[in-house]
Protein backbone atom coordinates (compact mmCIF):
# COMPACT_ATOMS: atom_id res chain seq x y z
CA UNK A 1 0.00 0.00 0.00
CA UNK A 2 2.71 2.49 0.91
CA UNK A 3 4.40 1.59 -2.35
CA UNK A 4 1.29 2.57 -4.28
CA UNK A 5 1.03 5.92 -2.53
CA UNK A 6 4.67 6.83 -3.20
CA UNK A 7 5.52 5.09 -6.42
CA UNK A 8 8.61 7.25 -6.99
CA UNK A 9 11.61 7.64 -4.74
CA UNK A 10 12.16 10.94 -2.97
CA UNK A 11 15.04 11.89 -5.27
CA UNK A 12 12.84 11.21 -8.30
CA UNK A 13 10.14 13.57 -7.04
CA UNK A 14 12.84 16.19 -6.58
CA UNK A 15 14.55 15.69 -9.92
CA UNK A 16 11.44 15.36 -12.06
CA UNK A 17 9.17 17.66 -10.04
CA UNK A 18 8.95 20.38 -12.70
CA UNK A 19 7.61 17.97 -15.29
CA UNK A 20 5.61 15.83 -12.85
CA UNK A 21 3.35 18.75 -11.88
CA UNK A 22 2.20 19.17 -15.48
CA UNK A 23 -1.07 17.43 -16.35
CA UNK A 24 0.47 16.30 -19.66
CA UNK A 25 3.03 14.17 -17.75
CA UNK A 26 1.79 13.65 -14.19
CA UNK A 27 2.72 10.61 -12.13
CA UNK A 28 1.48 8.14 -14.74
CA UNK A 29 3.63 9.74 -17.45
CA UNK A 30 6.70 9.69 -15.21
CA UNK A 31 6.15 6.00 -14.44
CA UNK A 32 5.88 5.26 -18.16
CA UNK A 33 9.10 7.17 -18.79
CA UNK A 34 10.81 5.24 -15.99
CA UNK A 35 9.84 1.91 -17.55
CA UNK A 36 10.73 2.80 -21.13
CA UNK A 37 13.95 1.92 -22.95
CA UNK A 38 14.98 4.13 -25.85
CA UNK A 39 17.60 3.39 -28.49
CA UNK A 40 19.47 6.34 -30.00
CA UNK A 41 21.12 5.23 -33.25
CA UNK A 42 23.91 7.67 -34.05
CA UNK A 43 25.57 9.84 -31.40
CA UNK A 44 26.33 12.86 -33.58
CA UNK A 45 24.64 16.21 -34.07
CA UNK A 46 21.15 14.79 -33.62
CA UNK A 47 21.88 12.05 -31.11
CA UNK A 48 23.76 14.25 -28.62
CA UNK A 49 20.93 16.67 -27.75
CA UNK A 50 18.28 13.95 -28.16
CA UNK A 51 20.02 11.68 -25.64
CA UNK A 52 20.60 14.57 -23.21
CA UNK A 53 16.92 15.48 -22.94
CA UNK A 54 15.79 11.84 -22.82
CA UNK A 55 18.23 11.17 -20.00
CA UNK A 56 17.11 14.36 -18.26
CA UNK A 57 13.45 13.30 -18.45
CA UNK A 58 14.21 10.00 -16.69
CA UNK A 59 13.62 7.15 -19.12
CA UNK A 60 14.63 3.72 -17.85
CA UNK A 61 17.40 3.10 -20.34
CA UNK A 62 19.17 5.03 -23.08
CA UNK A 63 20.95 2.78 -25.56
CA UNK A 64 23.60 4.40 -27.74
CA UNK A 65 24.80 3.03 -31.08
CA UNK A 66 27.79 4.42 -32.94
CA UNK A 67 31.02 2.96 -34.28
CA UNK A 68 32.84 6.27 -34.61
CA UNK A 69 35.25 8.13 -32.37
CA UNK A 70 35.07 11.80 -31.40
CA UNK A 71 36.78 14.20 -33.82
CA UNK A 72 37.58 17.88 -33.41
CA UNK A 73 35.31 18.76 -36.34
CA UNK A 74 32.36 17.22 -34.46
CA UNK A 75 32.52 19.57 -31.50
CA UNK A 76 30.75 22.63 -32.89
CA UNK A 77 27.52 20.62 -32.89
CA UNK A 78 28.00 17.33 -31.00
CA UNK A 79 27.63 18.91 -27.61
CA UNK A 80 27.80 15.74 -25.48
CA UNK A 81 31.46 15.27 -26.37
CA UNK A 82 34.37 17.50 -25.41
CA UNK A 83 37.89 18.39 -26.42
CA UNK A 84 39.59 15.98 -24.03
CA UNK A 85 37.52 13.12 -25.51
CA UNK A 86 38.86 13.46 -29.05
CA UNK A 87 39.73 9.94 -30.20
CA UNK A 88 37.42 8.23 -27.69
CA UNK A 89 34.44 6.13 -28.78
CA UNK A 90 31.44 8.46 -29.23
CA UNK A 91 29.25 6.02 -27.35
CA UNK A 92 31.57 5.96 -24.32
CA UNK A 93 32.04 9.71 -24.39
CA UNK A 94 28.29 10.25 -24.49
CA UNK A 95 27.49 7.71 -21.80
CA UNK A 96 29.97 9.33 -19.42
CA UNK A 97 28.45 12.78 -19.89
CA UNK A 98 24.87 11.51 -19.68
CA UNK A 99 25.65 9.64 -16.46
CA UNK A 100 26.93 12.80 -14.85
CA UNK A 101 23.68 14.57 -15.78
CA UNK A 102 21.40 11.78 -14.56
CA UNK A 103 22.82 8.71 -12.79
CA UNK A 104 19.31 7.29 -12.26
CA UNK A 105 19.14 6.20 -15.92
CA UNK A 106 20.78 3.06 -17.34
CA UNK A 107 23.11 3.60 -20.29
CA UNK A 108 23.90 0.81 -22.73
CA UNK A 109 26.86 1.19 -25.08
CA UNK A 110 26.77 -0.37 -28.54
CA UNK A 111 30.22 0.53 -29.89
CA UNK A 112 29.62 -0.66 -33.42
CA UNK A 113 28.12 0.29 -36.73
CA UNK A 114 24.59 -0.95 -37.24
CA UNK A 115 24.32 -3.87 -39.67
CA UNK A 116 21.34 -5.92 -40.84
CA UNK A 117 22.78 -8.95 -39.06
CA UNK A 118 22.69 -7.37 -35.59
CA UNK A 119 19.82 -4.89 -35.88
CA UNK A 120 16.92 -7.16 -34.87
CA UNK A 121 18.66 -8.49 -31.80
CA UNK A 122 19.83 -5.03 -30.76
CA UNK A 123 16.48 -3.25 -31.21
CA UNK A 124 14.49 -6.01 -29.54
CA UNK A 125 15.23 -4.86 -25.98
CA UNK A 126 14.10 -1.27 -26.60
CA UNK A 127 10.59 0.19 -26.74
CA UNK A 128 11.25 3.12 -29.07
CA UNK A 129 13.98 4.06 -31.55
CA UNK A 130 15.48 7.40 -32.63
CA UNK A 131 17.12 7.53 -36.04
CA UNK A 132 19.95 10.03 -35.60
CA UNK A 133 22.09 8.62 -38.42
CA UNK A 134 23.33 10.30 -41.55
CA UNK A 135 22.88 8.01 -44.55
CA UNK A 136 19.95 6.48 -46.50
CA UNK A 137 21.26 2.94 -45.99
CA UNK A 138 20.91 3.19 -42.22
CA UNK A 139 17.54 4.97 -42.52
CA UNK A 140 16.02 2.06 -44.49
CA UNK A 141 17.59 -0.53 -42.21
CA UNK A 142 16.36 1.17 -39.03
CA UNK A 143 12.85 1.59 -40.41
CA UNK A 144 12.62 -2.03 -41.58
CA UNK A 145 13.80 -3.29 -38.20
CA UNK A 146 11.31 -1.08 -36.34
CA UNK A 147 8.44 -2.39 -38.52
CA UNK A 148 9.44 -6.02 -37.96
CA UNK A 149 9.63 -5.48 -34.19
CA UNK A 150 6.67 -3.05 -34.01
CA UNK A 151 8.57 -0.18 -32.43
CA UNK A 152 7.70 3.48 -33.05
CA UNK A 153 10.48 5.41 -34.77
CA UNK A 154 11.37 9.11 -34.47
CA UNK A 155 13.45 10.01 -37.51
CA UNK A 156 15.26 13.30 -38.10
CA UNK A 157 17.91 14.65 -40.43
CA UNK A 158 19.71 17.90 -41.03
CA UNK A 159 22.04 19.46 -43.57
CA UNK A 160 23.45 22.96 -43.91
CA UNK A 161 20.67 25.27 -42.67
CA UNK A 162 17.77 22.82 -42.86
CA UNK A 163 16.23 19.99 -40.88
CA UNK A 164 13.43 17.45 -41.25
CA UNK A 165 11.53 15.37 -38.66
CA UNK A 166 9.03 12.52 -38.98
CA UNK A 167 7.40 10.14 -36.51
CA UNK A 168 7.14 6.79 -38.29
CA UNK A 169 5.43 3.47 -37.60
CA UNK A 170 3.25 5.10 -34.98
CA UNK A 171 1.05 3.48 -33.88
CA UNK A 172 3.47 0.58 -34.36
CA UNK A 173 1.04 -1.99 -35.70
CA UNK A 174 1.89 -5.29 -37.42
CA UNK A 175 2.69 -5.36 -41.15
CA UNK A 176 -0.57 -5.43 -43.09
CA UNK A 177 -2.52 -3.50 -40.46
CA UNK A 178 -3.58 -0.34 -42.27
CA UNK A 179 -4.18 1.49 -38.99
CA UNK A 180 -0.44 1.52 -38.27
CA UNK A 181 1.60 4.60 -39.07
CA UNK A 182 3.58 4.76 -42.33
CA UNK A 183 7.18 3.57 -42.36
CA UNK A 184 10.19 5.17 -44.07
CA UNK A 185 9.60 3.02 -47.17
CA UNK A 186 5.98 4.17 -47.40
CA UNK A 187 7.21 7.75 -47.69
CA UNK A 188 10.29 6.91 -49.80
CA UNK A 189 9.71 3.60 -51.59
CA UNK A 190 12.84 4.08 -53.69
CA UNK A 191 16.18 5.38 -52.42
CA UNK A 192 17.60 8.63 -53.77
CA UNK A 193 20.30 8.35 -56.44
CA UNK A 194 23.66 8.13 -54.68
CA UNK A 195 24.91 11.31 -56.36
CA UNK A 196 22.07 13.33 -54.77
CA UNK A 197 23.06 12.33 -51.22
CA UNK A 198 25.14 14.94 -49.42
CA UNK A 199 26.59 14.36 -45.97
CA UNK A 200 27.22 17.00 -43.31
CA UNK A 201 30.92 16.52 -43.90
CA UNK A 202 30.54 17.46 -47.55
CA UNK A 203 27.73 20.01 -47.35
CA UNK A 204 28.35 21.52 -43.96
CA UNK A 205 25.98 21.93 -41.03
CA UNK A 206 25.11 24.74 -38.67
CA UNK A 207 25.23 23.47 -35.06
CA UNK A 208 21.93 24.82 -33.71
CA UNK A 209 20.09 23.61 -36.84
CA UNK A 210 20.88 19.96 -36.16
CA UNK A 211 20.57 20.73 -32.43
CA UNK A 212 16.97 21.89 -32.76
CA UNK A 213 16.05 18.75 -34.68
CA UNK A 214 17.67 16.50 -32.05
CA UNK A 215 15.87 18.23 -29.17
CA UNK A 216 12.59 17.89 -31.08
CA UNK A 217 13.28 14.16 -31.48
CA UNK A 218 13.54 13.85 -27.70
CA UNK A 219 10.28 15.76 -27.34
CA UNK A 220 8.41 13.52 -29.81
CA UNK A 221 9.81 10.45 -28.05
CA UNK A 222 8.65 11.73 -24.65
CA UNK A 223 5.16 12.46 -26.04
CA UNK A 224 4.89 8.92 -27.48
CA UNK A 225 6.14 7.29 -24.26
CA UNK A 226 3.87 9.32 -22.00
CA UNK A 227 0.83 8.56 -24.21
CA UNK A 228 1.63 4.84 -23.80
CA UNK A 229 3.28 2.56 -26.35
CA UNK A 230 1.16 -0.50 -27.13
CA UNK A 231 2.83 -3.86 -26.48
CA UNK A 232 4.06 -5.38 -29.75
CA UNK A 233 2.18 -8.29 -31.20
CA UNK A 234 4.11 -11.48 -30.61
CA UNK A 235 4.80 -13.02 -34.00
CA UNK A 236 5.80 -16.32 -32.38
CA UNK A 237 2.23 -16.86 -31.25
CA UNK A 238 1.30 -17.06 -34.92
CA UNK A 239 -2.05 -15.32 -34.52
CA UNK A 240 -3.72 -14.09 -37.70
CA UNK A 241 -2.25 -10.65 -38.17
CA UNK A 242 -5.27 -8.85 -39.61
CA UNK A 243 -7.43 -9.86 -36.66
CA UNK A 244 -4.93 -8.64 -34.16
CA UNK A 245 -4.65 -5.42 -36.06
CA UNK A 246 -8.37 -4.84 -36.03
CA UNK A 247 -8.61 -5.60 -32.34
CA UNK A 248 -5.88 -3.13 -31.60
CA UNK A 249 -7.46 -0.52 -33.82
CA UNK A 250 -10.76 -0.73 -31.98
CA UNK A 251 -9.10 -0.36 -28.60
CA UNK A 252 -10.85 2.71 -27.23
CA UNK A 253 -8.17 3.27 -24.60
CA UNK A 254 -5.47 3.84 -27.22
CA UNK A 255 -4.50 7.50 -27.38
CA UNK A 256 -5.52 9.27 -30.57
CA UNK A 257 -2.61 9.94 -32.88
CA UNK A 258 -1.81 13.07 -34.80
CA UNK A 259 -1.99 12.28 -38.52
CA UNK A 260 1.46 11.48 -39.95
CA UNK A 261 3.36 14.64 -40.75
CA UNK A 262 6.76 15.95 -41.72
CA UNK A 263 8.19 18.99 -39.96
CA UNK A 264 10.45 21.11 -42.16
CA UNK A 265 12.90 23.60 -40.67
CA UNK A 266 14.91 26.15 -42.59
CA UNK A 267 17.00 28.61 -40.60
CA UNK A 268 17.06 31.33 -43.26
CA UNK A 269 13.45 31.07 -44.44
CA UNK A 270 10.53 33.03 -43.03
CA UNK A 271 8.60 31.40 -41.42
CA UNK A 272 11.32 28.92 -40.41
CA UNK A 273 9.04 25.96 -39.62
CA UNK A 274 6.47 24.28 -41.83
CA UNK A 275 4.40 21.14 -41.19
CA UNK A 276 3.13 19.06 -44.10
CA UNK A 277 0.81 16.04 -44.09
CA UNK A 278 2.23 12.66 -45.07
CA UNK A 279 0.47 9.69 -46.63
CA UNK A 280 -0.68 6.69 -44.60
CA UNK A 281 0.74 3.17 -45.06
CA UNK A 282 1.39 2.20 -48.66
CA UNK A 283 -0.69 -0.79 -49.84
CA UNK A 284 2.31 -2.33 -51.59
CA UNK A 285 5.02 -1.36 -49.07
CA UNK A 286 7.87 -3.86 -49.04
CA UNK A 287 8.11 -3.53 -45.25
CA UNK A 288 4.73 -2.78 -43.66
CA UNK A 289 2.00 -3.93 -46.06
CA UNK A 290 0.15 -7.25 -46.21
CA UNK A 291 2.41 -8.12 -49.14
CA UNK A 292 5.63 -7.21 -47.33
CA UNK A 293 8.66 -9.11 -48.56
CA UNK A 294 11.07 -7.99 -45.87
CA UNK A 295 11.15 -10.59 -43.10
CA UNK A 296 13.18 -11.26 -40.00
CA UNK A 297 14.93 -14.04 -41.89
CA UNK A 298 15.80 -11.93 -44.92
CA UNK A 299 17.19 -9.22 -42.66
CA UNK A 300 19.27 -11.48 -40.44
CA UNK A 301 20.61 -13.59 -43.29
CA UNK A 302 22.04 -10.52 -44.97
CA UNK A 303 20.11 -11.23 -48.18
CA UNK A 304 18.98 -7.60 -48.14
CA UNK A 305 21.89 -5.50 -49.32
CA UNK A 306 21.13 -1.97 -48.15
CA UNK A 307 24.28 -0.49 -49.62
CA UNK A 308 23.50 -1.92 -53.04
CA UNK A 309 19.83 -0.88 -52.73
CA UNK A 310 20.96 2.69 -52.11
CA UNK A 311 23.42 2.53 -54.99
CA UNK A 312 26.49 2.98 -52.85
CA UNK A 313 29.36 2.26 -55.19
CA UNK A 314 32.19 2.26 -52.70
CA UNK A 315 31.11 0.14 -49.77
CA UNK A 316 30.85 2.28 -46.67
CA UNK A 317 29.99 1.29 -43.15
CA UNK A 318 26.24 1.39 -42.78
CA UNK A 319 26.19 3.94 -39.99
Amino acid at each position, binding site marked *: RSKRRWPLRKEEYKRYGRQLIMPEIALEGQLRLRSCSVLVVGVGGLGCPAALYLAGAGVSTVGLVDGDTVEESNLHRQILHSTEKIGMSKVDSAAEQLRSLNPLVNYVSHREHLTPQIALQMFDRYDLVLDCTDHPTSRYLISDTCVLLQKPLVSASALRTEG*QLMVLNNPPRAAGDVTGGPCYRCVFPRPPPAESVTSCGEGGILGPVVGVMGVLQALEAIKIIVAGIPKPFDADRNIDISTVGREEASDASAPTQDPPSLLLFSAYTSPPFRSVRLRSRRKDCMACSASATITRASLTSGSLDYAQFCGVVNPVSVL
Partner: protein
Amino acid sequence: MPDTLDITVEFTGGLEMLFSNQRKHAISLPSREEDGNPATIAFLVRYLCQSVMKDRRKELFVLDDTVRPGILVLINDADWELEGEDKYEIQKRDNILFVSTLHGG
Protein backbone atom coordinates in the same frame (compact mmCIF):
# COMPACT_ATOMS: atom_id res chain seq x y z
CA MET B 1 -10.86 29.07 -68.56
CA PRO B 2 -7.92 31.48 -68.45
CA ASP B 3 -4.79 30.71 -70.44
CA THR B 4 -2.52 30.48 -67.43
CA LEU B 5 -2.75 29.40 -63.80
CA ASP B 6 -0.92 31.58 -61.29
CA ILE B 7 0.61 29.25 -58.74
CA THR B 8 3.44 29.23 -56.22
CA VAL B 9 6.20 26.66 -56.55
CA GLU B 10 8.71 26.20 -53.73
CA PHE B 11 11.91 24.20 -53.47
CA THR B 12 13.66 23.12 -50.29
CA GLY B 13 16.16 20.60 -48.93
CA GLY B 14 18.81 21.74 -51.41
CA LEU B 15 16.61 21.61 -54.55
CA GLU B 16 16.57 25.42 -54.57
CA MET B 17 20.21 25.23 -55.66
CA LEU B 18 19.01 23.75 -58.97
CA PHE B 19 16.57 26.65 -59.44
CA SER B 20 18.78 29.75 -59.36
CA ASN B 21 19.13 29.44 -55.58
CA GLN B 22 15.61 30.75 -55.21
CA ARG B 23 13.19 28.97 -52.89
CA LYS B 24 9.92 30.54 -53.91
CA HIS B 25 8.82 31.01 -57.52
CA ALA B 26 5.65 32.69 -58.77
CA ILE B 27 4.78 30.66 -61.87
CA SER B 28 2.20 31.38 -64.56
CA LEU B 29 1.60 27.87 -65.81
CA PRO B 30 -0.23 27.24 -69.10
CA SER B 31 -3.62 25.95 -67.99
CA ARG B 32 -3.71 23.27 -70.71
CA GLU B 33 -1.11 20.72 -71.66
CA GLU B 34 0.09 20.30 -75.24
CA ASP B 35 -2.75 17.84 -75.93
CA GLY B 36 -5.43 20.17 -74.56
CA ASN B 37 -5.94 18.39 -71.25
CA PRO B 38 -5.88 20.35 -67.98
CA ALA B 39 -2.43 20.97 -66.53
CA THR B 40 -1.33 18.27 -64.12
CA ILE B 41 1.62 17.91 -61.78
CA ALA B 42 3.33 15.78 -64.43
CA PHE B 43 3.01 18.71 -66.84
CA LEU B 44 4.29 21.14 -64.19
CA VAL B 45 7.38 19.00 -63.67
CA ARG B 46 8.09 19.01 -67.42
CA TYR B 47 7.44 22.75 -67.54
CA LEU B 48 9.83 23.43 -64.64
CA CYS B 49 12.55 21.39 -66.31
CA GLN B 50 12.16 23.08 -69.67
CA SER B 51 11.32 26.66 -68.76
CA VAL B 52 12.50 27.40 -65.24
CA MET B 53 15.48 25.18 -64.40
CA LYS B 54 18.72 26.61 -65.69
CA ASP B 55 20.96 24.03 -64.02
CA ARG B 56 21.98 21.31 -66.46
CA ARG B 57 21.86 18.50 -63.90
CA LYS B 58 18.26 17.56 -64.74
CA GLU B 59 18.87 14.09 -63.29
CA LEU B 60 18.95 15.62 -59.81
CA PHE B 61 15.29 16.65 -60.29
CA VAL B 62 13.69 14.18 -62.72
CA LEU B 63 14.09 10.50 -63.55
CA ASP B 64 11.96 8.56 -66.02
CA ASP B 65 9.80 11.61 -66.70
CA THR B 66 8.77 12.12 -63.07
CA VAL B 67 10.45 13.57 -59.98
CA ARG B 68 13.39 11.45 -58.90
CA PRO B 69 13.27 9.20 -55.82
CA GLY B 70 14.02 11.12 -52.63
CA ILE B 71 11.89 14.13 -53.56
CA LEU B 72 8.55 14.61 -51.85
CA VAL B 73 5.92 16.59 -53.72
CA LEU B 74 3.46 18.47 -51.52
CA ILE B 75 0.25 19.93 -52.91
CA ASN B 76 -0.98 22.66 -50.56
CA ASP B 77 1.06 21.12 -47.73
CA ALA B 78 -0.15 17.55 -48.26
CA ASP B 79 1.78 14.61 -49.73
CA TRP B 80 0.82 14.36 -53.41
CA GLU B 81 -0.10 10.72 -52.87
CA LEU B 82 -3.11 12.03 -50.93
CA GLU B 83 -4.15 14.05 -54.00
CA GLY B 84 -3.64 11.69 -56.97
CA GLU B 85 0.13 12.01 -57.48
CA ASP B 86 1.23 13.40 -60.83
CA LYS B 87 -2.29 13.17 -62.27
CA TYR B 88 -3.55 15.88 -59.90
CA GLU B 89 -5.03 18.77 -61.91
CA ILE B 90 -3.50 22.04 -60.80
CA GLN B 91 -5.83 24.77 -59.55
CA LYS B 92 -5.11 28.48 -59.45
CA ARG B 93 -3.30 29.69 -56.33
CA ASP B 94 -2.07 26.15 -55.57
CA ASN B 95 1.15 25.88 -53.60
CA ILE B 96 3.38 23.09 -54.88
CA LEU B 97 6.37 22.30 -52.67
CA PHE B 98 9.24 20.06 -53.77
CA VAL B 99 11.28 18.75 -50.82
CA SER B 100 14.51 16.85 -51.21
CA THR B 101 15.04 14.59 -48.22
CA LEU B 102 18.05 15.30 -46.10
CA HIS B 103 20.24 12.53 -44.74
CA GLY B 104 22.78 14.33 -42.58
CA GLY B 105 22.79 14.06 -38.83
